[in-house]
């Protein structure tokens, strides 16, 4: 590790902190229906959309209606995306002549993008036409992100409202989220990215002849427009196979910095939106602090693991020592312009959130360096998290934390003035347990089936890690991978598709049930016996609950993968 590396990590962290409050203030206005700077331009467009879709802007929805609207919208999106993929060969914007996407792959990819996972079983530049990338995948980069955000807003309204039957209007929230938050930022960022070197064209792939006379075909496309929303919406699906490690998708250190700031920006700002909506910004900062501590712990472990380098290479007299002339460390699967610090930072941030974009190959991380992204996702991606899903995931843990605190002192737990009863705790446990059910269940299935065992590219414990990471990533709607695994098979496309579906929707429904039942409750004024949820004691308790829950559930599985590999590596074993 170097001083410069830590300075870069510190600069990044300070930018995220600085953005949280102003961006939170803006989003609060957007979701409260107040006028914003952009209203004069966007309000007419907003009205047109409501008219076309037949939406009554003033109509409020019960949590069940809100959930049903979300599910129908996701289903419609799935069908359209599947159709575009299957028909791309006969549709326009296909200069590379891509053929129709195969059925199980189209199924997997459609679920993947509708659920904000962006797991990619395919190589984009050899599979997807420009039309599929734009009118198929980019659309879901916007709307799956917006769906996550508005669900979090609905839960926050559940805390903020008293004796209410409704949580807002899904269609209005969704439209406002896309128009006022996602689209303006994406336009500005996309143009910045082009300026910094990202392609934005509809050209055929470039054919060049190198100085040595060899032919090289260089893939092109409308990269920047997809890249901006890919990061802002914590989607993470690359325009190219190498994702944000591809020099066209992340040309330099500045675009890299902007990309990781975008990943955390909405998740961090939503903690502030939460604080504002429940009437006490300190409540938001307490949640932010929990996230911040877990984020820093993750960065430190990955950075240390990667900077130490690979002992097997040390034995071969390879120079992995950092100096003024090289970053050193474990450079397999990393890019020179990012080196170790920015790769470690990106890996941590993309899995704290449910982004899943990568600027280095996670499969080639050191054992403990690869363990951190896995654990981040297993904990539910609640560290700033996927846009929206991070906040609602964290608030579910908060409910569990106050419940445990209540048990300790023998009082009915309350959070933000709402009594937490058996129903909320049951729903919270359901939402939390659905993740390990899918991750561990499918991993176990894959390790006993020949079709599952055919997947891993690496031998030994690392092969098991590849399987475990795949189902962790899919269930967590992350989308990053230990990418050596051959996932484009009927077995993996189907099981990973189901894992993505379970991880998204089976968590959302109990969460919205909590929101609905909280909204209906009265607010109890705080008394001397109320456990304060805006102080350091609560922050510590919540971190403990998250660590213990995750530790108990996943420790055995993680032991079989990264932990064993780490010990074997230090003993000099190769597979």
């Amino acid at each position: 590790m170097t001083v410069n590396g830590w300075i870069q990590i510190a600069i990044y962290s300070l930018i995220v902190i600085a953005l949280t409050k102003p961006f939170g203030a803006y989003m609060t206005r957007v979701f409260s229906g107040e006028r914003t700077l952009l209203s004069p331009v966007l309000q007419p467009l907003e009205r047109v959309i409501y008219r076309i879709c037949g939406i009554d802007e003033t109509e409020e929805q019960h949590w069940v209606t809100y959930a049903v609207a979300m599910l129908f919208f996701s289903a419609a999106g799935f069908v359209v995306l599947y159709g575009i993929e299957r028909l791309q060969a006969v549709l326009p914007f296909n200069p590379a002549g891509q053929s129709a996407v195969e059925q199980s792959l189209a199924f997997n990819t459609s679920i993947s993008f509708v659920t904000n996972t962006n797991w990619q079983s395919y190589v984009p530049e050899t599979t997807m036409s420009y039309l599929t990338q734009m009118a198929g995948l980019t659309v879901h980069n916007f709307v799956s992100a917006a769906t996550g955000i508005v669900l979090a807003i609905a839960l926050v309204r559940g805390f903020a409202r008293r004796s209410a039957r409704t949580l807002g209007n899904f269609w209005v929230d969704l439209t406002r989220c896309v128009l006022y938050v996602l689209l303006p930022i994406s336009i500005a960022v996309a143009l910045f990215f082009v300026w910094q070197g990202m392609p934005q064209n509809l050209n055929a792939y470039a054919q060049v002849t190198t100085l040595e006379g060899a032919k090289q075909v260089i893939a092109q496309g409308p990269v920047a427009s997809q890249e901006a929303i890919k990061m802002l919406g914590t989607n993470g699906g690359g325009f190219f196979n190498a994702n944000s490690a591809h020099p066209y998708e992340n040309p330099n250190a500045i675009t890299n910095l902007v990309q990781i700031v975008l990943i955390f920006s909405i998740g961090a700002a939503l903690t502030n939106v939460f604080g504002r909506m429940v009437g006490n910004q300190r409540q938001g900062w307490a949640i932010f602090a929990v996230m911040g501590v877990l984020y820093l712990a993750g960065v430190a472990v990955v950075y240390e693991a990667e900077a130490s380098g690979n002992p097997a290479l040390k034995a071969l007299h390879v120079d992995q020592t950092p100096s003024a002339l090289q970053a050193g460390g474990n450079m397999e699967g990393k890019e020179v312009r990012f080196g170790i610090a920015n790769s470690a930072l990106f890996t941590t941030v993309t899995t704290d959130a449910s982004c899943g974009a990568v600027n280095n190959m996670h499969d080639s991380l050191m054992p403990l360096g690869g363990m951190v992204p896995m654990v981040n996702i297993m904990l539910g991606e609640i560290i700033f998290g996927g846009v929206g899903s991070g906040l609602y995931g964290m608030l579910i843990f908060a409910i569990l934390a106050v419940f445990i605190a209540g048990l300790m002192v023998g009082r009915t737990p309350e959070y933000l003035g709402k009594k937490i009863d058996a129903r909320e705790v049951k729903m919270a446990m359901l939402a939390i347990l659905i993740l390990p059910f899918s991750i561990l269940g499918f991993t176990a299935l894959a390790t006993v089936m020949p079709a599952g065992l055919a997947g891993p590219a690496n031998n030994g414990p690392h092969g098991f890690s590849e399987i475990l990471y795949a189902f962790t990533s899919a269930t967590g709607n992350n989308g990053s991978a230990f990418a050596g695994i051959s996932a484009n098979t009927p077995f993996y496309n189907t099981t990973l598709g189901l894992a993505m579906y379970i991880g998204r929707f089976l968590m959302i429904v109990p969460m919205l049930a909590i929101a609905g039942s909280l909204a209906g409750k009265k607010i109890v004024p705080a008394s001397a016996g109320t456990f304060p949820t805006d102080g350091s004691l609560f922050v510590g308790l919540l971190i403990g609950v998250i660590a213990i829950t995750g530790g108990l559930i996943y420790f055995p599985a993680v032991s079989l993968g990264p932990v064993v590999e780490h010990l074997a590596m230090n003993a000099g074993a190769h597979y």
Partner: protein
Amino acid sequence: MIKQIRPAVLMIAVMTVLTGLIYPLGITGIAQILFPHQANGSLIQKDGKAIGSELIGGNFTSDKYFHPRPSATTEPDPKDPAKTVPVPYAADNSSGSNLGPTSKALVDRVKADVAKLRAENPGAPVPVDLVTTSASGLDPDITPAAAYFQVPRIAKARNIPQDRLKALVEAHIEGRFLGVIGEPHVNVLKLNLALDALRNG
């Protein structure tokens, strides 16, 4: 409940037009006007022909050029499309090696590369980026250490004094942004173009 189906269908149609067509095509139009070089892939022309991209690494194997990092990219096998064959710097099929840290294949590959590099520059430590594949397989850069390491070989092949080559490398090191962000690196294609110019001039 059923009432929600109509807005669901119409909303996805509206969003497809807005965020899937108007947005990317609009950005394409503006980008083509404001930043045509970058928007079209930052291609480098020499004598009127494209020889590569500033941003995309290309393969160099001759002793007379600086070599890029090893690349793990592949292409379909011409004899059997179901299989793949290694084709370094295949810029239409980006990929890393995805070899884990305890992989025997990784250790064997590095061992072979180290042996070759130590033969061309005995005694000097081998910089790690010269024996590890990049994440994209298209890394356009090497570290300054990796560029300096190759100077003796190129000096011999081109019959140019090592000091001139070292000065050339130094002039092509791109430092950190504001001295802080990123890592110092050397763009291999730009360095090799300058190397050719050196000989001619």
